[in-house]
């Protein structure tokens, strides 16, 4: 579904990603972990071109991420959930969810609202559909944001530290939604600090350090038996 080859990314003179190769198969849940500044969020943001890449190739669902029209085509198929939710504050929860299907997918208002209601129901927020974001808790906002991304019927979902800005008691409700999605077979790339989630839901774990993939494999294996000293050092600090 996603192929990344020899991806390099510079911010000015600073090389943040130093030749990343990775692949994500359909229905696979790939969890990316690593310390702050390791490049994991940048990698995720490159996947739908929120960051320009310096060199290398990215292909998503057989579409190469190279021209402007391809970028829009890919963004339609790739949902993204942000650390700070980024809900549209001037719209209700339902309006947040139905806007893009209407103006990007050209669905009728009725069709879009059917999808919107179904998805808000799925994330457990159908009773909040007419609330504005500022009246929702962090966890609720993030669940609306997930519904908003899903409303485009994406083939891949990207999660950029989706629970890092949440109060601890709200992390669970968001992870639960993500877990359900994974069970339904959604292809997911998840950048997270939630090691429990990584272990339980991830099909494959990727550990990034200083812009390179240091180790990857089944989560259980990496957690119980990390081979690389850098992985060992990182895991010993957080587990």
């Amino acid at each position: 579904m996603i192929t990344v080859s020899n991806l390099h990314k510079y911010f000015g003179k600073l090389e943040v990603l130093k030749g990343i190769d990775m692949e994500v198969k359909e229905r696979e849940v790939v969890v990316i972990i690593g310390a702050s500044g390791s490049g994991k969020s940048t990698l995720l943001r490159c996947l739908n071109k929120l960051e320009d890449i310096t060199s290398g190739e990215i292909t998503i669902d057989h579409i190469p991420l190279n021209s402007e029209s391809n970028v829009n085509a890919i963004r339609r198929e790739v949902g993204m959930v942000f650390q700070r939710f980024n809900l549209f504050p001037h719209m209700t929860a339902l309006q947040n969810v139905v806007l893009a299907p209407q103006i990007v997918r050209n669905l009728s208002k009725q069709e879009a609202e059917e999808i919107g209601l179904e998805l808000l129901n799925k994330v457990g927020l159908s009773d909040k559909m007419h609330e504005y974001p500022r009246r929702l808790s962090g966890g609720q906002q993030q669940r609306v944001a997930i519904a908003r991304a899903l409303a485009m019927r994406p083939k891949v979902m990207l999660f950029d530290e989706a629970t890092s800005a949440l109060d601890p008691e709200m992390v669970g409700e968001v992870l639960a939604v993500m877990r359900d999605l994974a069970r339904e077979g959604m292809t997911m790339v998840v950048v997270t600090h939630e090691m429990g989630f990584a272990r339980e839901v991830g099909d494959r774990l990727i550990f990034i350090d200083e812009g390179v993939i240091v180790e990857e494999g089944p989560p259980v294996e990496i957690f119980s038996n990390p081979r690389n000293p850098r992985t060992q050092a990182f895991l010993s600090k957080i587990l």
Partner: protein
Amino acid sequence: MTIGAINWGLALDSFPVLVQGAKITLQFTVVSIFFGMILGLVFALGRMAKSKIIKFLAATYIDFFRGTPLLVQIFLIYFGLPQLFPFTLPDNYQYIAGAIAMSLNCGAYTAEIFRAGIQSIDYGQAEAARSLGMSHIQSMRYIILPQAFKVVVPPLGNEFITLLKDSSLLAIIAIEDLMYTGKIIAGRTFQALPIFMMVAVMYLSMTMVLSRLVNYTEKRLSKSDNG
């Protein structure tokens, strides 16, 4: 010239004539606000465009009209521009020239207000919009501009009030606005103090109504939802 008694009654007597002038003042203000907002939006977007040429053109326009006096701009367009055209201009060219000068001036200030408003919106909003597949234009139209609009209402209100006051410069090219009408009456009657006091009170009334209107809009917008 002997200075006679101050005739305060004349201020009231001339009120109906001054109202005619005030109508012209308001017409010019409304027209230049209308075109100024359109120009302002276009040039604000131009100033943030990717193309260096567009950016340069927009910046040049904005800098010129913010950096030179409105009176000079009025003279350039009223006296200067006709030199470029060989044909004779219509008799009422001063109205056209005045409206163009005021609109261009308002557009430059409004452009900077819009730009500041747009840039004050968290970048995450544009990223969220683009990540949903919206085009740049759609993201502006549905996400950024509606939020920026709330931010720009207070500075926009200030600009409109300034514009209303500055429109008095139009009197110099013989547009019969409030200022011009006052000047004519004062010149004919030698009663400058009562007449210009009346003119001042009338400008003040208009700016106060305008500023109340801005406050009201601001309150209503912030009540509606997010803040």
